[in-house]
């Protein structure tokens, strides 16, 4: 095999026809952003799945670590009063 350098990896985000926001759909290799968008069109929108594409080089993404799950997300678990259903109101008060 010929040894040459691999193209960098890009993460692909697509916003669909009725989508509210871009969603991660997968990744691919490309030489630069422009090339990544072209490839993303071919790989991830063959069936009219999108109206907009974002590409981000994978090495530029920082992610929370799985071992941090507890400290990061547990504190919001016991704050049920952040949800409207926590507040019991009489029916007569009407829709709120």
């Amino acid at each position: 095999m010929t040894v040459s350098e691999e193209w960098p990896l890009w993460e692909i985000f697509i916003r669909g026809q009725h989508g509210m926001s871009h969603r991660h759909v997968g990744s691919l290799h490309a030489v630069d952003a422009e090339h990544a968008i072209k490839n993303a069109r071919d790989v991830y929108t063959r069936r009219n799945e999108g109206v907009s594409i974002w590409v981000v080089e994978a090495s530029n993404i920082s992610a929370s670590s799985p071992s941090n799950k507890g400290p990061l997300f547990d504190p919001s678990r016991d704050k049920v009063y952040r949800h409207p259903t926590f507040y019991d109101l009489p029916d007569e008060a009407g829709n709120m």
Partner: protein
Amino acid sequence: MYAQMVKSTGETVVAKEKLSPKEREFQDRIDRGEKIEPKDWMPEEYRKNLIRQIGQHAHSEIVGQLPEGNWITRAPTLERKANLLAKVQDEAGHGLYLYCAAETLGVSRDELFDMLHKGKMKYSSIFNYPTLTWADMGAIGWLVDGAAIMNQVPLQRTSYGPYARAMVRICKEESFHQRQGFQIMLTMAQGTEDQKRMAQDALNRFWYPSLMMFGPSDKDSVHSAQSMAWKIKMNSNDELRQKFVDEIAPQAAFLGLNIPDDDLVWNEKTGHHDYSEPDWDEFFQVISGNGPCNKERLDARKKAWNDGAWVRDGMLAHARKKAMRKVAE
């Protein structure tokens, strides 16, 4: 299947008491139906097995383009040509989704290609058979994609997140493949005597190789237990093969074609079809490199890779130069 004989290290499942606390916690997560993600801790053997399995699956999608690509320029109508082109393009996409899933496990795309080219990684035996007539495009869509679907649908629930998500995408795209194949068979089966004969001949040649796609019989499949416990294999080979036969038999009858197996009968007692096993010697020959088209397929892959090297290098060099120019401005 697309991953037919994935060499796995654990022939038997290690009893839970013998697992280290970390391993036990890992198994518990899988048992609870949680997804394992790339950054999560995982046993080295789980990671290795998955690389082999997903890699083999990816290679199958890519090599699988070759037998069908053979007919794109000779499709009988422009519409059929467009259909087949779209299908083969999908398979390229399937390969890409799967390579990306494998890469999250710490293997590079180039390493995977290299292992394929050196014969260190396998791809499905089915793609080592020649496609002799247009009817083979029908038989492949109907039977080969049909068998692939049977295997891939349960894999949407596999424990490794990126693999499961790739499977969801693939399954969404796959059903058009089988339908376009079946439609080719239907048209030919209802066509002229010659067309009908070609359809029957394609079924004759692809029937047993399709059964082989599910891998060796359960009694000879030593690698399954640990993979099942890890939920990277969801059903046994024979289970899926039986399901396939039960689904295809009535479809063949509908087409007015005969499955080339005199012992294939509906068994009232089991509620399944009895059928003949494929020639397993042939299977082991084909999977270990001695099938009718193994050399041709691998040569085609290597040629594409080597001939494309200057393009890959050139594009990267050009992109770098452009980026430098931007910085300079």
